[in-house]
C-alpha cells in the first residue's frame, strides 16, 4: 500500500507544481462562481443575505467543492486514461483496482485541501460569516472526506463502463449542490431523515454547521444520519467499483473509449 500511496502522491504533486496556473485558475473559478451567485442573489432580492442560512450555504458550497474534487477527478481521470491508453496499464498493476482508485480519490481530495481552504477563507471574508472552530468538527469533516471517497469510487466505476460521463456528471454535481444546501436533514418526519441518510453530504453539512456556528445544535439524529450516509456511500462506491471492474474485464472494454 505504501508504494501505491507514494506513486500517486508523486503524480499529484507533479501535476500541482508543474501546472500552477491550472491550480490557481480552478481555485479562482470556484470562488468567482460563489461570488456570482452571492451578489446575484443580493441584486435580485434587493436585500442582504445573512443569518444561519448563509453560513449553511457557505459550508455546503465548501463541501460541494470537496465532492467535486473527488468525483470530477475520478470521472475525468478514467475517461482521459481510457482515451490516452494508460488505463489498461493502471489495471495491470499488481493491486486490486479498487485500492488504486481509492488512493487516487484520496489524493484528489488531498490535492484540493489547500485550494478549498483558501476558497473557504475568501468566502467567509466576503460574506462576513463567522465560524467558531471546535475540534469535534474534525469528525464530520472526516465523514465528508470519507463520503467523497465513496462517491468518487462510485463515479469511477460508472466511468469504467461508460467512459464518457463528464457531461452527465456535471448535471449530477449541480443537482447535488442544491441538495447539499437544502435542509433535508433537519426537516421533521422520518421520511426526510431516511432521505438524508441516502443523499450524500446532506446530513454532514448540517452537522458541521451545528458544530461550527454558535447557537446552532448538532442533534443525535444528525450524527446518526451522517455516519450512516458515510457507510452507505463508502460501501456503495466500493461494491459498485468492484462490480464495474469485473464487468469491464468480462466484456473486454477496459481500453475502449
Amino acid at each position, binding site marked *: 500500500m505504501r508504494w501505491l500511496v507514494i506513486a500517486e502522491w508523486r503524480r499529484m504533486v507533479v501535476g500541482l507544481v508543474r501546472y500552477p496556473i491550472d491550480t490557481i485558475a480552478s481555485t479562482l473559478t470556484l470562488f468567482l462562481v460563489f461570488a456570482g451567485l452571492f451578489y446575484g442573489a443580493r441584486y435580485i432580492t434587493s436585500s442582504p443575505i445573512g443569518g444561519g442560512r448563509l453560513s449553511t450555504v457557505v459550508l455546503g458550497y465548501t463541501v460541494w467543492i470537496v465532492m467535486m474534487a473527488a468525483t470530477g477527478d475520478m470521472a475525468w481521470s478514467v475517461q482521459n486514461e481510457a482515451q490516452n491508453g494508460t488505463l489498461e496499464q493502471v489495471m495491470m498493476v499488481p493491486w486490486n483496482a479498487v485500492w*488504486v482508485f481509492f488512493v487516487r480519490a484520496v489524493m484528489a481530495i488531498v490535492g484540493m485541501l489547500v485550494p478549498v481552504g483558501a476558497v473557504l477563507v475568501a468566502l467567509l471574508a466576503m460574506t462576513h460569516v463567522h465560524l467558531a472552530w471546535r475540534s469535534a468538527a474534525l469528525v464530520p469533516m472526516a465523514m465528508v472526506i470519507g463520503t467523497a471517497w465513496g462517491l468518487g469510487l462510485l463515479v469511477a466505476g460508472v466511468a469504467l463502463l461508460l467512459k464518457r460521463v463528464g457531461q452527465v456528471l456535471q448535471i449530477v454535481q449541480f443537482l447535488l449542490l442544491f441538495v447539499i444546501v437544502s435542509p433535508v436533514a433537519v426537516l421533521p418526519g422520518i421520511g426526510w431523515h431516511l432521505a438524508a441518510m441516502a443523499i450524500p453530504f446532506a446530513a454532514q453539512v448540517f452537522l458541521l454547521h451545528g458544530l461550527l456556528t454558535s447557537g446552532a445544535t448538532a442533534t443525535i439524529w444528525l450524527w446518526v444520519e451522517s455516519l450512516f450516509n458515510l457507510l452507505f456511500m463508502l460501501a456503495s462506491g466500493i461494491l459498485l467499483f468492484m462490480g464495474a471492474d469485473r464487468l469491464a474485464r468480462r466484456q473486454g472494454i477496459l481500453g475502449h473509449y
Partner: protein
Amino acid sequence: MLRVQDLTKSFQTRTGRIAAVRGISFEVQAGEVLAFLGPNGAGKTTTIKMTAGLVRPDHGDVLVDGRSLASHHDWVTARIGAVLEGSRNLYWRLTVMENLLYWAAMRRVPGRLSRERASHLLDRVDLLARAHNTVQTLSRGMQQKVALCQALMHHPPVLLLDEPTLGLDYESSESIKEMVRELAHDGIAVLLTTHQLDIAQELADRVAIVRDGQVVLEGQTAAVLDRFSRPLVQVVAAEPWPADLDQRLLGLPVTVTGPDTLELLPGDLGERALYALLARLAPHPLARVERHQADLAQVFLEVVGTRVGP
C-alpha cells in the same frame, strides 16, 4: 515460463455472440520470442489482453511459472510487463523519469532501485539525456522506447509486446528490434504480435499463426519456413542463355523463366537433377544458383489466405 491454456472468449454484439478466441494454447520459454501472428480480428489482441489479465476469459487459464492468473492474479501480473497496441502507455505530462518511477512504484519497486533501473534502461535505449523531458516532447519512436522501459521497470520474466513497431520509422524499428533481441538473450520470455512479418521472422524463435480465434500453425520459425519452402532451384546466368539451351535441357524438369534465368524442380531426382543441369549448362557462365526459401509472408499467405502489413 508462460503457458496459455485453452483460452476461450466470446463477446456479445448487436448481431449476436461472436467467438473471438477459441481454445488457444501455447507456451513461451525463458529467453524465447514467440511471434503471435494473424490477420486483423483473428484474436491476437484479445489473447494478449487475457494473458495480461485485462480481459477475463470464458474458459482457460494463463500460467506464469506454474501459477495461475485466475487464482494468483497479483503474483502473476507482477511478473508480466506489457506494451499494448495503440496505447500511449505513458503519462504525457510527466517526464520520462517521473513516468518510470511512477510505474515502478505502482509495481512495488523500491525507490533507490527504481532510479537505478530507470537510468540503466534509459541508457540502454540512448534516452538518458531525455530523462527530464516530458513524454509529450519526444518523438513517437522515443515514446515507444520509454514505453518498453516502463514495461521492464519491475524486471518481469514475461514481456507482452502488441505491435511494438507499429508506425515507427526504420531506425526506431531497428532499435526496438535490437532491444527485444537483447531482452530475450537476458532470459525474458517475449510474446510478440506484429503485422510486420519481416520483423517477426528476424526476431522470433517460434511462430504461432491464428485465424478465426484458433492457432492454425505453430512451430520453430526455421522449421516452419523449411516446411513451406518449395524444392525449387533458381539458376541465374551471367549473360543471356545460348541459342541451343532447349536442346541441352531435354529430359530435365526445368522451366526457362527469362533470357538469363531458369528454374529446376528436381522432384524424385533430388540432387542428381541439379548436378545434371549444371553439367549440361557448362561452360556457360552462371551468376548464382539459389534454393527457394519461403519467408513468413509466404507462409502467412498460404496459411491464412490474406496478405498483411503495408
